[in-house]
Every structure is written in structure tokens, then in C-alpha cells.
């Protein structure tokens, strides 16, 4: 440092800054580059009110279907493209269908060894006279197991949506408060004609439903159709006599336990059958004589289980839609 500069001049040079930074005397970033703390945001109530009003006004204008030209144009465009897409789909499907094998022909890919075995040895292998019942409850039982659970999960979702529950203190829940539990006020009560006809019809309908379920393996019918008929009978009874009568024998608890036992039985019975089938074990379930009412192994009990589930589910759907409970 032979050529000493005056102190003031030296303080302006880069070397001075560098050495002082090196010795920790000074941080060049401090106070220069560092971010300032954010200013506190003060809410002006008047401004906020105005903002909200403007916001509402904008929304009103945007969602005003009648006057917003862009929105209308967008809707038109959307509809036009959708219609074009649907027309295109229709043309595509028609062309496809024109190439498919002819309806009603005996020789086509569908009529192969699979269908042949179902028809030829279905009676022997499943014991069911109704080949379709034998197919869905024995050959392809896994599908049907899934199907009954589709119905089950749908009931659960309907329960979630519509069941009106009270919380522990017995107050109606605020989330479902706006639902009206009773929509019957506008309907005629104790209609004599309806009650008389229903008292004739309901037993017949229910017996017919039971017949369909029990004959599922012998003729047209089965658990689902029979269950739907019984459900319809119950709904008719409910309409004629009101909830106070049906609640004597059918509450949510009944529904819960019937569903539980039927589905559990279904699951366990089919698990047994799948397990023995896959491990090539002999199944102890007797097939019986084809054509007799007690025949065809598991198909009859499974039909009864499905019938119970379906009947209860149909009634439960209706009760849920009517007043959000049983």
C-alpha cells in the first residue's frame, strides 16, 4: 500500500468494501437488497362493501342467461358440437351394426361351445331347469355377487343423501334441516277405495312374488324379479295405509338386519362354492332331482336371499324418497 489514497477516496473503492465484508464489519446486502416486511393490509369496511356489491353485480351479469351474448353463444356452440358428436356416434354405430353378424342366424360367433354347454349340460351340472338362472347363479356367479353389491352400495348412498337423522341431542341435523320430512299433507288420507282394493291386492301380489322367487330355478323368474314384485306390493300397502301401519313390521332395523343376513349368507355360500371349485374339492351341496322344488343346489337359497334384499331395497328406496326414513 505504497500509494496511499486519502481516506474518503479509499472508502469508495471496491477493495475497501471487499475487505470490510471479509472481516465481517459490514453486510452489503443489509438495508439494500433485503425484502421489506409486508405492509399490514388494512380492511376498509366501506371499500369491502363496495367490492362485494361489484362482485355480485358482475356475477349477476355473467350468469344472466337472457342477456349475456357470449354465454349464449358458448351454449349454442356447445350444443352444436354435442349434437354433431352424437350424430357422428349414431352413424358410426349404424355402420358397425351393418357389419355385425345377422340377427336370428343360428351360425354366428355368439352361438359357440359356451352357450352349447350351458344348454346341453346345464340341467345336469347345476340342476336348474331355468338355464339362465343356472348360468347367472352358478356358472357366472361372481358377476351376480357383484350385482347384488351394486344394489347394496346404491342403497347406502341413498341413505347418505336422504336419511333424516337426529344428532345425539335429538335435534335435526343442520345439514338436512331444509328437507321437509312430511310431504303427505297434500294427499288424501284413508282413501276407502284405495284401502279396499289394496287389502285385496297386496296379499295376492306378495304371494305372486314369493311364487316367482321360489320358482326361479324352475321357470321364468328369480330373486330379482320376485323381489321387485314383493317390493311393489309393500309400496302399495304403504300408499294405502300410511307409514304408521308399515312401521309395525318394517322399520330401518328390520331392513338393516334382513339385508345383513341375506348378503352375508350370499357371500358365505358363494365363497364356499368358489373355494371348493377352485381347489377342486368336492362340494357337499346336493343337486337334487331337476324339476323338483328343492333342487339345484344353492340356487334356490340364493334366489331367496336376493329376493329379500331386493324387496327390502325397493321399499327402502321408496320410503327414503317419500320422507327420508322408514
Amino acid at each position, binding site marked *: 500500500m505504497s500509494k496511499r489514497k486519502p481516506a474518503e477516496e479509499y472508502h469508495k473503492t471496491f477493495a475497501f468494501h471487499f475487505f470490510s465484508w471479509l472481516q465481517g464489519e459490514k453486510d452489503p446486502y443489509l438495508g439494500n437488497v433485503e425484502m421489506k416486511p409486508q405492509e399490514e393490509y388494512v380492511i376498509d369496511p366501506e371499500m369491502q362493501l363496495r367490492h362485494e356489491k361489484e362482485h355480485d353485480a358482475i356475477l349477476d351479469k355473467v350468469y344472466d342467461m337472457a342477456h349475456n351474448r357470449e354465454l349464449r353463444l358458448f351454449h349454442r356452440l356447445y350444443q352444436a358440437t354435442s349434437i354433431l358428436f352424437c350424430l357422428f356416434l349414431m352413424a358410426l354405430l349404424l355402420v358397425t351394426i351393418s357389419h355385425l353378424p345377422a340377427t336370428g342366424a343360428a351360425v354366428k360367433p355368439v352361438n359357440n361351445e359356451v352357450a352349447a354347454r*350351458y344348454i346341453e349340460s346345464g340341467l345336469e351340472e347345476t340342476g336348474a331347469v331355468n338355464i339362465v338362472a343356472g348360468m347367472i347363479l352358478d356358472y357366472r356367479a*361372481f358377476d351376480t355377487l357383484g350385482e347384488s353389491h351394486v344394489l347394496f352400495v346404491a342403497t*347406502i348412498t341413498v*341413505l347418505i*343423501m336422504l336419511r333424516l337423522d337426529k344428532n345425539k341431542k335429538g335435534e335435526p341435523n343442520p*345439514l338436512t334441516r331444509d328437507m321437509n320430512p312430511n310431504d303427505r299433507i297434500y294427499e288424501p288420507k284413508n282413501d276407502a277405495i284405495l284401502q279396499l282394493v289394496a287389502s285385496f291386492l297386496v296379499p295376492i301380489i306378495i304371494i305372486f312374488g314369493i311364487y316367482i322367487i321360489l320358482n326361479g330355478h324352475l321357470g321364468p323368474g328369480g330373486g330379482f324379479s320376485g323381489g321387485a314384485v314383493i317390493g311393489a306390493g309393500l309400496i302399495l300397502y304403504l300408499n294405502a295405509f300410511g307409514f304408521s301401519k308399515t312401521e309395525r313390521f318394517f322399520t330401518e332395523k328390520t331392513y*338393516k338386519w334382513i339385508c345383513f343376513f341375506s348378503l352375508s349368507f350370499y*357371500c358365505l355360500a358363494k365363497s364356499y362354492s368358489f373355494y371348493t371349485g377352485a381347489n377342486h374339492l368336492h*362340494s357337499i351341496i346336493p343337486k337334487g332331482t331337476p324339476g323338483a322344488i328343492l333342487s339345484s343346489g344353492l340356487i334356490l337359497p340364493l334366489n331367496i336371499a336376493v329376493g329379500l334384499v331386493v324387496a327390502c331395497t325397493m321399499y327402502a328406496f321408496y320410503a327414503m324418497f317419500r320422507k327420508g326414513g322408514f
Partner: protein
Amino acid sequence: MDFVCNFPFFSILISLFSGTICSVLPEKAAKAVNRIVIAAVGVMSGILLLYLLGTGESFVYWMGHFPAPWGNEIRAGILEAGMALFFCIIMYLSMAGGAHKLFDEVEESKHNLYYILINLLLSSLLALVYTNDMFTAYVFVEINTISACGLIMIRQVGRTIEAAVRYMIMSLLGSGLFLFGLCIMYDLTGHLLMSNIKESVALLIQSGEYQIPLIVSVALMCIGLCIKSALFPFHAWLPDAYGYSTVSSAAILSSLVSKGYIFLLIKIIYRVIGFEIFNNTRIIDVLFVFGLLGMIFGSLSAIKENDIRRMIAYSSVAQIGYIYMGFGMGTQAGMVASVFHILSHAATKSLLFIAAIGLTEVSGGSRKFIDLTGAGYRNKWAGVAFTAGSLSMVGVPLFSGFISKLLFAQAAVQVEGKMLAALIVLGISTVLNAIYFMKTVIRIYATTGDTSYPCITFKDMKVHAIVLLFFIVLNIILGVSSQPIVNMIEQGLAMFA
């Protein structure tokens, strides 16, 4: 047959049956049953995976007393077992991580119904993974859809109900198309089992018969599953559904439900149509284009979002675009990349959703970015986890997202004609990802003078923190030891043929 071979069947049946059982149990017991079932299924899948790695062969399992073309079947290979194990892990972690916020705005008396839905969802996912029969797949797709809808709407605010309606409408359009395609396929082949359909399809292709219906049927099934898994133009229902449902629902929906459909599509491509035949159709080009569009538009929508959960939801659209881009490349490498991305996205997206709830919790329940300022300091664990998830999404090495991007890039290089487009869009999408994820990370670590919100320490959120830790570890495992996993995926895909 070894006893282990019963495990796929046991896992499906146990989870179905536990759904029924939960309907009569009180909430606590239902919760316990649910946890035990998920854990048990996970353990079984793990054992099955080890067994299959040992034998190196897949097997079919008769569902009943009748052999292949007549009875119903399920099938297990390495990929199936691995997927089942992975789904169980994610589901368990999502349930545990969202447990304290599970019943936000859900009625008390309906809590046990939630567990029924979860059990049935698990069983349907397992059935989709294991099934060897197209019609069974359709039935379980419906269970999956309905229970997913239940998961969305169980939190009964207006938005979720509307989202559930939109979700159902899109899903029903999808299943209608899928079923129609399935019926045409059945008409052409006369079979419903996947392996038998494949044989018949190969014969049809050789003989040159019914070419048009065959292609149309495949296309209908593909479009159906694309709609259901929220590929780009069909994603309108997604942000509300993921953004407003309870946190566990959102994590499960984004990481598992859509992946179930995608896995079914992979199965259809390999086991029903045949990989070569599928690649010779124009369908893969359509999937490729929509995948690319999804990658860009999903990210763009995410950038515009002002709500953290909706932003993550939109990011899902982009990630699903990646997966379909992999399908669209039409090579084995692209497929491997897609399968790996299914795993990596599932692990990361559920992590992000679970971490986001931790952040919103310390911001007065608000999900707006302005309120989240500094949330990373108030809830350190969630902040770190969110950062890790974001880095993984952006594709930083060490995390799983890097490997899947690497695999996609490698796969793209091998494809002529699609390389440039794929690489450019991959690059753009990565940048866009970085923009919106880094924006969020910077936001949650910005200093603020506002201290009105409470801080949360480890003691207040033990389970949550441990779950987040597990998720981060899972991500790092996927990112660091990717080679064995990629090998396993390759082996599993080879088993499909």
C-alpha cells in the same frame, strides 16, 4: 395348487363381506374392521407378490366349479399383486392421514356408512385389478363409480352434491359406452373371458373378418374408460369433486379410483385386444394427442387456480395426461413409464392432498393462497411434506416424479414421429408444473407479520405427521430404488401376454 393362490379371491371376498358387516356395526367397530381389512389385504397381496416373484408365473383361479370358457375366473400376476399391495398401502395411509378431518361436516349418524363405502371401493378396485372377465369388470366398475360418488357426496355441502351429480353423469356416459363396446365385442367373439376373447380376436384379425366392428368396439371401450378416468376434455367434474370432498376421499379418489380404470384399460390392451393389434389401430394416436393436450391444459388451469385443493386437483388432470401419453407412444417402454407413473402419481398426489389439509388447518380452514402465507412455518411437518410432494411433481431427482419423467423421455426417444411432440410437451409441462408448485411452496414459506393463526407442533398431529413421513419415504423409495420396480413392471407386463 398352493394355498397362496387363494389370496386374490380372499382379498376380494373379505373386503366385500366387510362392507356388509360394517352396515350393522357402530362407528368405532366399523373403523377398526376397515383398518384391519385394508391391512390384511395388503399383507396378503405382499405375500402373493413374493410368491409370484419366486415362481415367475401367473396363474388363473376358477371362481366356481367350471373351467375357462364357461366359468368365471380371476387371474394374478406380478403386476396385479404389486398393484393390489400398492393400492392397499395408499388407501391405508390416506385413511389414517385424513382421520382427524374425516368427518368434517358429515353427520354423526352416517359415519359408519363411510367405512362401508371404503370397503366396497377397495373390493371393487381389487376386482378390477384381478379380474379375467370383461363383464365382471363392468359390474365392478359400477360398484367403483357408485362408491366413489358416495365418497364425494358424504360431505353434504352444495358444491359436493353438484360435483357428485356431474361425476355421475360423466361416469354413466363412460359406462354406457364401455358396455356397448363390450356387447359388440361379445357379439364378434362369443366370449366374455379375456384370454378367450384374445384368441378369437387374433383369429378375426388373421381372417380379416369384422374389422370395422372390432375397431369400433375397442374404441368405444377405450373412450368409456378415458371418460371415467378424467382424461383432458372430460375432466369438468374433477376439480369440485376433489376440491371439496373430505380429505381422505380426495386422496383416495385422485390416487386410486381413476388408476383402477386405467389399470383395467391396460389389462384390456394387453389381455383382450393384444398389444400389437392395439398399436396398429389409430386409437393410440388419439390417446397420445389427448394426453398431450391434458398435460398442458391441466397445468394451465392449475396455474389460474386460487384455491390450493383445486390446484392439486387440476394437476391430476395433467398427470393423467402423462399416463395416456405413455399409452399413446405404442411401445413397451412407454407402457412401463405409464405404469410407473401410476405408482408415482398415486404416492405423490395423496401426499399433497394430506399435506394440504395440514396447511389449511393452520390457516383458519381457508384454502385461498392469500391465507396460506407462512403456513409452512406454522405446521412444519405439513410444510416439509408439501414441499417434498411438489418437488416430486416437478421432477427433482431423488423423488419418484423424476424417474417417471425420465422414463417418459427415454420412451419418447425410441418412438419415431412422436418424439419431438412428446419431448417438447414434456418440457413445457414440467415448466408449468414448476410454476404452480413452486409458487405454492414460496407462498407457504413467505414471512408474514400476521400471527393470528395458531402454530401446530408434532404433539398435536402425531398420526398425521407419521403418515406424511411414510408418504415421503414411499416417494423416495420409488425415486431411489426405481430399477427393481421398473424390472418388476416389465416382468409383470410380459406376464400379461
